[in-house]
């Protein structure tokens, strides 16, 4: 959190982000380009799943990032409620839709993948269901932070939700696992993670890192926009 402390002041953050953003954007594009190339052309097609396995290179990192994103929201929520960092609210506002988008991408790619693999877009599998619930938690956060006249109130309400939600996430995950193992659906043929070859693992990790770059870049960019929006709001109201 040390760097957040340093950046707690929006003006200082702006100076920092303006220096970092262009380079970060460039690096993101570069990494993503290389990653996608590896995913589509270098990595071998799976002997069982054919070309569809390539969906994994987006699907799995999205899942990781959306889970990490919610943890970020909780950290930001705590620093807003406890230390009153003005930037934490803006950053949470910026990060929530990005995290939600990654969750949506995970769900979408997953169900697109499910069609060839399971013959259906959706099954009530534990992992799928808990990802869906995470997506809802994101939606709740976004809706709550925008539901108020006073943006500060929305920020604080959403921060409380993020903290409670992050405590609940393991409970939700656990309960959904339990729920599903009680009566396992017979029709589902899940991909039992086979010992992953390096030929797949390397592109996967590469894509994970480049999507992480994308995540950070988007969050910083959106934070800048939020700062500007807040400034306009202030200017608008003090005129």
């Amino acid at each position: 959190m040390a760097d957040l402390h340093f950046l707690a002041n929006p003006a200082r953050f702006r100076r920092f982000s303006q220096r970092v953003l262009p380079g970060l954007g460039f690096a993101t594009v570069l990494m993503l380009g290389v990653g996608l190339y590896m995913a589509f052309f270098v990595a071998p097609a799976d002997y069982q799943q054919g070309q569809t396995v390539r969906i994994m290179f987006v699907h799995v990192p999205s899942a990781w990032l959306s889970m990490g994103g919610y943890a970020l929201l909780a950290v930001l929520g705590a620093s807003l409620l406890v230390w009153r960092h003005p930037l934490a609210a803006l950053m949470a506002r910026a990060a929530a839709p990005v995290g939600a988008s990654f969750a949506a991408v995970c769900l979408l790619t997953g169900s697109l993948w499910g069609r060839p693999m399971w013959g259906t877009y959706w099954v009530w599998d534990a992992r799928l269901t808990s990802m869906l619930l995470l997506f809802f938690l994101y939606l709740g956060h976004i809706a709550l932070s925008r539901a108020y006249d006073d943006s500060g109130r929305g920020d604080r309400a959403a921060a409380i939700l993020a903290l409670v939600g992050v405590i609940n996430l393991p409970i939700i995950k656990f309960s959904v696992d339990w729920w599903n193992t009680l009566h396992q659906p017979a029709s589902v043929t899940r991909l039992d993670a086979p010992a992953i070859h390096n030929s797949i693992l390397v592109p996967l990790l590469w894509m994970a890192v480049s999507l992480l770059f994308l995540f950070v870049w988007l969050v910083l960019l959106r934070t800048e926009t939020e700062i500007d929006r807040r400034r306009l709001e202030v200017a608008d109201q003090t005129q």
Partner: protein
Amino acid sequence: MASPLLEVTDLACRRGSRPVFDRLSFGLGGGELLALTGRNGSGKTTLLRALAGLVRPDAGTIRWQGEDVAGDPDTWRGRLAWLGHLDGLKGDLTVAENLETAERLRGGDAARLDSALVAFDLGPLAARPVRTLSAGQRRRTALARVVLAAAPLWLLDEPLNALDAPAQAAFRSALQKHLEGGGLAIAATHAALGVVGRTLELAA
């Protein structure tokens, strides 16, 4: 002069993202009344809410007998009696029940209920559910709640709203009595309160 009981230093507040007031300082001793005046939107309501701790100020301190009230909010709240824009009454409870519950919630025992009712001529209405009262009758009930609280500091937002002339007189004498007993009062108002006191005019 001894330092005042209540001391406000450099208080600053914003609503939404609009600064409402900035570097507001004043002190108030026992038996003193402060009337808040100023144009509509000058921040009287905001100041009262900040004093009560309902709005967190951006900057500044509020001291009671020299101690920052933020340090022990429970005790500070115990020192306050609050009358807001809204009356804070439950329509389904009777006048007497409303007063009694409100005082119990403050941790008191509502022993002086009858005299508070009499002070605002609420005797005949005591058993009526508040939802059947007129605007001024409700306001009188809310004022009786303030009197009942027996708190050293009254915070009142437009206490005269909707009151008829006899009720205004009743309020005045209750306020006078509170001040004579060494109490403090801060009241936002557009009309003259009719009680001797200092005035703080907020700039718009």
